[in-house]
């Protein structure tokens, strides 16, 4: 294969542009490249997430206070009010699940946790500030023991079967995987 003047010219141009690109990136890197690029999506995403977590914790603060004081019915009423303003917010479902669990309404508590996790998987993530991994593990243990036992005794009961299915979903989310 022979290279004529056309090939040599374009080959030289290629080397010059490549060199210019390397030089540009090297200069940008030494002069604070990430900020010079003007784009840091990871940082933006992280800031958005921190702001969201802080907002959610502030918004549901009154509910948490009522729950801590043992005023569970009032806490549920406050949750209903917030859910009308922010339908589909996972944190509301999580708090509802915690309150129902404390009231001993196991199947409904499990259903609330399931609804929360379907919207936001952070609650099962040990690294997340919203993590409820310990509570969910306890709920799964209780669910398998109590609801599982009831379902085995009454296999024809559709609502018990659905409750056990929810427990298995929580169990699967705790196990991990790509989600």
């Amino acid at each position, binding site marked *: 294969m022979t290279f004529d003047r056309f090939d040599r010219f374009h080959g030289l141009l290629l080397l010059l542009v490549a060199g210019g690109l390397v030089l540009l990136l090297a200069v940008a890197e030494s002069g604070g490249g990430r900020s010079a690029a003007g784009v*840091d*999506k990871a940082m933006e995403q992280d800031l958005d*997430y921190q702001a969201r977590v802080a907002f959610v914790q502030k918004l549901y603060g009154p509910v948490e206070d009522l729950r801590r004081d043992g005023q569970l019915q009032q806490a549920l009423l406050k949750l209903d009010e917030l859910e009308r303003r922010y339908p589909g917010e996972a944190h509301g479902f999580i708090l509802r699940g915690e309150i129902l669990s404390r009231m001993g309404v196991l199947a409904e508590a499990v259903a609330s946790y399931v609804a929360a996790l379907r919207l936001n998987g*952070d609650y099962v*993530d040990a*690294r997340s500030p919203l993590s409820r991994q310990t509570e969910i593990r306890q709920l799964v243990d209780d669910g398998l023991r109590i609801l599982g036992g009831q379902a085995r005794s009454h296999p024809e009961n559709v609502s018990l079967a659905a409750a056990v299915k929810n427990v298995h979903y929580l169990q*699967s989310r705790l*196990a991990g*995987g*790509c989600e």
Partner: protein
Amino acid sequence: MNLRDFHLWIVVAAGAFLGALGVLLAVWGNPENSGICVSCFIENSAGALGFHENPRMQYLRPELIGFVLGAAVCAAGFREFRSRGGSAPLPRLVSGIFLMVGCAVFIGCPIKLFLRFTAGDLTAVAGVLGLVAGVWAGLKGLGGGVHLGSSREEGRGSGFLVPGFFLLLLVLFVARPGFLIFSGRGSAAQHAPWLLGLGGGAVLGALAQRSRFCITGGVRDTLLLGRRSPLLWGLLAFIAAATTLNLATGRFHLGLYGQPGAHLDHLWSFLGMALVGWISVLIGGCPFRQLIKAGEGDADAGLVVVGMFIGGALVQSWGIAATAAGVSLVGKAAVLAGCLFVLGATLLFRERAPA
């Protein structure tokens, strides 16, 4: 089966290493039962590049980079790198998209299918049956004259583009520019040390290039050749290695329920993997094999890889990907659309005898 056949032992070694690395990468930090999963890794990498916005699925998986570059270096070293292509480019691109659809609905590629299976996940059984059914359907298609055409060797260098792209991804991974996203939570935040992922991936890529190892190829050759197929023994070595390590590391949990990254929609697990098996036979390999072939200079496989990245973005952005809760309506529709695509391709690409 000729025990003196060196190729047989390379295939067995590749299968065993794939199974072992698949479990070990999960031990070292990758998500449970997802030590190696081409589809999950592509979804994660598409997210890292900003192709979708799921904040729990954004990480540029170094294993993918290792597969392609390991295959490229090995092919070049053994003078097997051939820039070739030109066979039905657009159908191959679309095939890549639907490969990802099938994998996302099952929640895993054929490698992860068997990793889940060897970890005792009985929900993978439907996927195994589906994969076998899909491969069978693909073989029937090939036998009936369905042919996407042969790639041609060409000296234009298009085969360098995909290895070049993955080399660029390696540079980006190391340099970490601001537009690259790495999840701080979720499954994408779970990863093995990057050097282990990259190095292991490169060794596996090289082994797979030498051995031509392919999961769906193993199923295909078993259906055609039975015990004479070297790929069958590679697949069995994979299963043996993965099962042994899962048992040794306490990751074997036999059952249907509570399995990581699994759902109970068995029909759609079957159909998703059937779609993957069917397409894989028609285009000449599973998602992993497509990456290896792209590393060898096969531009047709490179287009499949591009299609898989597009598919990886779509399955996350459009809610096609299944979750532990099950398969969404969009996911079911996407699988059926994929079946329509394969059926249409079967009719359009069939070489018929002249009347």
